[in-house]
């Protein structure tokens, strides 16, 4: 019932804002797509309701490196609040001894996606946390080892009991708490120029940004995929993003690239020739899905460079440029991409619009002090 209510609320809000924005700025193709607007209240799964205590616990766990194999790699290691809740490298750092193979995506507003990771491999923040903490080139944590570590921390035992009503922390509950924390790492409309504008403050956007908004919904065609309050269709597209040359040179990146092909179960012929990230293909094993990645949100881009699944673009100018060219060469490239013929001013306008989707100041949460281990008392069980 709650979800249904939320849905109608979002729909009503969307229609309202969409009408405003379309009428004001963007006639044409915009009306075919879910309209832009401020983010609705964050969706919360029915089996993991929010509470302040759960969020506070999730925050501790998010920063706790004991939720990794060798207690080196917390969630924050690759999702650093000070680095836009990602890293500042094209390819994320990996677990010690390894490098990752994809750009670290921001936690900001990730609560609004229905699909997580660059190729939508999982479908909830809860399962995202589990997959990242146990992935061998990410957290390399053993679930039972991590669970026993939590049980060795009296403060966690107390908090899990308060939050979940259990005598012993479980690792699945840790992922639930981290997901609840993730659902608080969201843009606030009052801090985002575009959202203030959408709510009626005409002065919130510069003339450039307003023209950029119109372009995004018209000539530049961004809205075809970057639509709705999240500015993502949560679907998969191939843009022909150029390869990141680091895979030509770096042994550790080559190792992880091949390893991903092995663990994802591709046919041997695909492994033998693997030279790039095949995106959605790993999940579907359909050739038409090669090179497709899930559309990322355009919110908070100011803080989340570099861009694309392989971090190949350092600036938004580069991103706009590649779209202006109609994407790069790829047999599977989306038919939605075609040369745009944007003028220099139009590119600047688009950039101004994109920047208006970011908070005025970055959302930063300082790492908390973590509770320590203590010897465990023996409690005879009946």
């Amino acid at each position, binding site marked *: 019932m709650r979800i249904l209510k939320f849905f109608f609320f979002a729909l009503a809000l969307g229609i309202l804002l969409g009408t405003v924005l379309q009428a004001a700025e963007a006639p044409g193709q915009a009306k075919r797509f879910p309209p832009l607007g401020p983010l609705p209240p964050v969706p919360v799964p029915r089996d993991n309701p929010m509470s302040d205590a759960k969020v506070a616990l999730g925050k501790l766990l998010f920063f706790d490196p*004991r939720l*990794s*194999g*060798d*207690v*080196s790699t917390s969630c924050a290691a690759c999702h650093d609040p000070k680095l836009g809740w990602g890293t500042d490298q094209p390819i994320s750092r990996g*677990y*010690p*001894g*390894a490098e990752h193979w994809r750009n670290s995506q921001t936690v900001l507003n990730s609560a609004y996606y229905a699909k997580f990771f660059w190729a939508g491999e999982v479908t909830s923040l809860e399962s995202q946390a589990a997959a990242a903490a146990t992935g*061998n*080139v990410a957290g*390399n944590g*053993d679930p*039972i*080892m991590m*669970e*026993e*570590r939590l*049980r*060795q921390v009296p403060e966690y035992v107390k908090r899990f009991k308060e939050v979940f009503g259990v005598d*012993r922390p479980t690792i699945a509950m840790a992922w639930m708490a981290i997901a609840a924390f993730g659902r608080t790492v969201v843009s606030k409309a009052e801090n985002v120029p575009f959202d203030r504008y959408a709510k009626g403050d005409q002065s919130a956007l510069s003339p450039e940004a307003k023209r950029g908004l119109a372009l995004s919904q018209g000539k530049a065609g961004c809205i075809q995929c970057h639509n709705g309050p999240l500015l993502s269709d949560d679907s998969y597209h191939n843009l022909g993003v150029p390869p990141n040359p680091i*895979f*030509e*040179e*770096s*042994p*550790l990146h*080559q*190792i*992880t690239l*091949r*390893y991903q*092909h*092995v*663990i994802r179960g591709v046919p041997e012929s695909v*492994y*033998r*020739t*693997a*030279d790039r990230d095949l995106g959605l293909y790993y999940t579907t094993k359909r050739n038409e899905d090669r090179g497709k990645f899930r559309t990322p949100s355009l919110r908070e881009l100011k803080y989340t460079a570099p861009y694309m699944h392989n971090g190949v673009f350092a600036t938004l100018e580069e991103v706009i440029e590649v779209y202006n060219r109609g994407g790069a060469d790829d047999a599977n490239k989306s038919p939605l991409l075609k040369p745009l013929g944007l003028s220099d001013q139009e590119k600047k306008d688009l950039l101004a619009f994109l920047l208006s989707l970011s908070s005025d100041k970055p959302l930063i949460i300082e790492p908390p002090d973590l509770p320590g*281990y*203590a*010897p*465990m008392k*023996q*409690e*005879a*069980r009946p």
Partner: protein
Amino acid sequence: MRPLVLSCFTTWILLGAVSAAGAQDLQPLPPLEAPKAEQVELGKYLFFEPRLSGDGGISCDTCHNPATGWGDGKPLSTGYPGSEYFRNAQTLLNAAYYKRSYWDGRLAGADLPTLVRDHLTEAHFMQVDGRLFAERLKQIPEYVEMFKTAFGGEPTFGRTLSAVTAFLKTITSRNAPIDRYLRGDTAALSTEARNGLVLFQGKAGCIQCHNGALLSDQKFHALGVPENPDLFADPLRHITFRRFFRTLGAPNAENYRQDPGLYGVTKEKADWGKFRTPSLREVSRTAPYMHSGAFATLEDVVAFYDRGGGQHPNKSPLIRPLGLTAAEKRALVEFLKSLAGDPVVIERPDWPDYQPRKLGQN
């Protein structure tokens, strides 16, 4: 003349006991089937290779160091970074001879590749995905070449296990005084050691469990060895301990305040606190002793047996106070020292580096 007569007499007694007792025989260590030299050479590199661990931080020799008797010289072994292990690291010397592997015998000794696999992939040891290290090894041209020579193909998870297994089969006792003695060279043991041998087979009763070529009956016994208090006082060890027994499916593991040993494997109450009889070969090189590393010296171990072991509900009836004199204890220790052969010294090789490969030619 007299010493010679005495030693001949002792030998005669020994041989007499041997023929009567059968399984209680002490025998020279039979040679193992020689593994392929190219696989041994590759296995040696891999044994010392930290890229076979999850975070590249440890290698087999971290806990099985040739310089400390192929163990780590600590009462309780170190585990994977961020963890501490909960038992003593056993020597690899002659490990290839056991019928069951580990202190609790949880693996079949005949399946050494699985023993290697367990060390590599378990969260408390090296916590690595075998598919990941196979790709790491493929990134090192020297290893690619060595795998080709040793196996006729590229690096794989399974071939890695086989290569380390081949190396393990070469870590065996060589030229131990006891073996020379058993082959007829009575001068190979000192008088005191020979006296110790007599005690070993007689008054001290060691031979009841420490028999055969390995000086182990390959069975499981409870001796009431004291636990190491760190097991439960050190959170890192207790975490590893509980995880281990949970993964074995042992019930109520969080309330154990003793190492249940074989029980963790069988879940039979009668097996609580039983551990596999370790070989006594090379024992003077492998301190500290027992599953908990409770004893720092062989003298401590002998004193423990002389007391009739410790307290344990499942304690073996074979263990009882021995009433050894100080001289007898010294003789026993002297005999135990004769069980060590020439040191098996292997130098850590220089690791070849990762190199870029031609992208897309895998």
